[in-house]
């Protein structure tokens, strides 16, 4: 009926593939290999790989295994690796995602290595170091700084006879500016009056009124008076009514891609929801230099609410088996001037003062504009944003839900304010 030979054949067929594959996997070498994960675009990949090459030349015993992807899916991948205790040694992080990683002890505190001199941060200013701290510990180093930025098209402003935006503008001034641009040019003043869905505009607004988005312990909202929410939404609603900004449906249908932003198409005079390191990209999209501008001030502001933040944070997995070698790499990354020149401003304006100086010396038109803007932003920035609590992304989603309800006219700002408070409180108190 059947014989041993054929039985063996089936079993072999079943496992031969898996075996041959595992052999390929098991081939490993003796030198220290560090895994380094980042997301980015083609140019970032090329710059980063070049730096890795330079590093390996200098340190032949350390091999860096690059693990790069696009932004889409990066966090799914990191989260899965965290769940599997399999994080890369060096992780390009963002501040808003750090809290849960720190709370669950996935990241290595750098303080001991700074203290014993293994990691040299002497050229990095205190305010920049602060950007990598969480719960009082140095959990990473900011790759560079970013400020929320709007961009405007100078030619259109000239044509409309409207003053360029200035750091001293108030929210009211900006509303007038958007309306005037709209009236004079027949195009949008901006797609949105500020970064709305992601909540950055509201964060600035709250800080200017002496409040914050999250309370200090991260267990509740940081403001008590829902009127702040209501006023903020009304500001947007009023602009929508005037036609100076997009209405709800237009915002919903507009694509996320930077090169399709209305400002790059000449359909809007400004864009408001970007960051400073996006200047080259958005200018390339428009085919000309678009000038950056800061968020406005509040008329009755009690403190400076605008902020800067780390573009990204370099963090180290707690599970790393080679902390010494990791520090060697970080030293090279942050302190080597040649490496810094290759990295450029792609990950924000560098935090190392010497690297910054070297970069500034031979900056092109776009980079020069970024440097100038960051200086202005630094002069007009309030305290560093506290670390967002782990429920951050869900609270932001809840905020976005209510924001859409309001601009679609499904809820009044007051109803939305109350609903948001209820939902956020539930999420944060867990």
């Amino acid at each position, binding site marked *: *009926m*059947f014989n041993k030979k054929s*039985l063996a054949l*089936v*079993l072999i067929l*079943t496992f031969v593939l898996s075996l041959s594959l595992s052999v390929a996997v098991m081939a490993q070498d003796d030198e220290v290999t560090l895994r380094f994960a980042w997301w980015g675009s083609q140019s970032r990949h090329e710059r980063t790989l070049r730096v890795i090459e330079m590093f390996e030349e200098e340190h032949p015993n350390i091999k860096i295994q690059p693990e790069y992807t696009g932004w889409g899916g990066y*966090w*799914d991948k990191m*989260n*899965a690796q*965290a*769940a599997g205790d399999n994080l890369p040694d060096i992780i390009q992080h963002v501040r808003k995602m750090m809290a*849960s*990683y720190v*709370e*669950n002890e*996935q990241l290595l505190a750098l303080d001991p290595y700074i203290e014993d001199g293994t990691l040299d941060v002497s050229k990095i200013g205190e305010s920049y170091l602060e950007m990598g701290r969480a719960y009082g510990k140095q959990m990473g180093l900011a790759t560079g700084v970013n400020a929320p930025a709007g961009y405007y098209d100078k030619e259109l402003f000239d044509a409309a006879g409207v003053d360029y935006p200035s750091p001293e503008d108030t929210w009211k001034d900006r509303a007038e500016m958007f309306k005037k641009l709209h009236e004079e040019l027949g195009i949008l003043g901006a797609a949105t009056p500020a970064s709305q869905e992601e909540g950055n505009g509201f964060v600035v607004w709250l800080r200017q009124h002496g409040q914050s988005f999250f309370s200090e312990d991260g267990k509740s909202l940081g403001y008590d008076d829902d009127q702040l929410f209501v006023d903020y939404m009304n500001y947007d609603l009023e602009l929508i009514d005037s036609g100076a900004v997009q209405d*709800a*449906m*237009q*915002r*919903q*249908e507009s*694509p996320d891609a930077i090169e399709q932003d209305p400002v790059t198409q000449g359909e809007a005079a400004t864009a408001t929801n970007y960051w400073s390191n996006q200047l080259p990209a958005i200018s390339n999209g428009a085919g000309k230099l678009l000038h950056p501008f800061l968020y406005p001030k509040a008329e009755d502001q009690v403190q400076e609410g605008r902020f800067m933040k780390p573009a990204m944070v370099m963090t180290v997995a707690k599970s790393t088996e080679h902390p010494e070698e990791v520090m060697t790499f970080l030293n090279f990354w942050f302190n080597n001037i040649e490496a810094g020149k290759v990295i450029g401003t792609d990950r924000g304006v560098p935090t190392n003062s010497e690297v910054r100086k070297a970069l500034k010396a031979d900056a092109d038109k776009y980079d020069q504009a970024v440097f100038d803007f960051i200086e202005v932003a630094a002069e007009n920035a309030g305290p560093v944003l506290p670390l967002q609590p*782990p429920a951050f*992304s*869900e609270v932001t*989603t809840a905020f976005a*839900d209510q924001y*859409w*309800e309001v601009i*679609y006219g*499904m809820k009044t700002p007051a109803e939305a304010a109350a609903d948001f408070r209820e939902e956020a409180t*539930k999420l944060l108190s867990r």
Partner: protein
Amino acid sequence: MNNKFEALDTVRSLDAGMNKKKWIKENLTGYVFILPWLIGFLAFLAFPLLRSLYYSLTEYTIVGDPSWVGLRNYIEIFTDDPKFWTSLKVTFYYVVFAVPLRLASALALALVFRKARPFTNFYRAAYYVPSILGGSVAISVIWRQLFSSQGAFNDFLVAIGVMGDRISWIGHPDYAIWTIIILAAWQFGSPMIIFLAGLKQIPKGLYEAAEIDGAGKIQQFFSVTLPLLTPVIFFNLIMQMVKMFMVFTQVYIITEGGPLNRTLVYAVYLYRKGISNGYLGYGSALAWIILVLLTIVTILLFKTSNKWVYYESEGE
């Protein structure tokens, strides 16, 4: 049919002694053949599935460890999660419209392509192309362009005088879901193939007989084609329903669940909650709920199938 074999089995096993060795051999042979599948099933499916059942009873965030909370996730989902209900509603709405529409287009085109004419092969391939493109970025860009307020769909409606004003189909809370339903109806390639196969297996003699009885083309369709095709329709219905209940990519690339969560289908919500927000325990509970629901709906459909699906074997 199976009973007959079972009876045979019994006879064989009664015939012990001499046949016992043979019986063991047969069993062994059978298991050897399904062994590769069995191993794969246990390792890659059954085991992870049970594990996710366990996770659904824990509080488990993506960077922490699971801790037992009993039924808390399920209770919260049913009593304190409006988005769960929203996503269920959206998903049912989508399935109820998208599945019949896709099957109808698939059947219609299968009927058109049934008869071999010049270029039929090319046409079939061309009509399959949308399904091959699946959820690629080109589809997302085109769909957004097509149904935006400046898009071609509005051009068309205005030109034929259906509408005076252009509206944003993607951005409108009531219509956004329909852009996705239309996409589903347009990607009908695989059920079309299955219908074509089903049509091919209908004996030609039946049509000839119907023609002799004086039945016209339309009558033939209703008296021969449709009844004989019911098993295939049923099969397609189940397959597409299962698929569309978990629709993800098409929604994710076009509306991402918006506007106002009116296109927040279940799989997108599950993804957001379980993967993006990192609540693995909660996400596992959501996944198990849809699994149970899907099973119930499938069983119900099977129950109704006795009423309308025509089984050839009954006549034998």
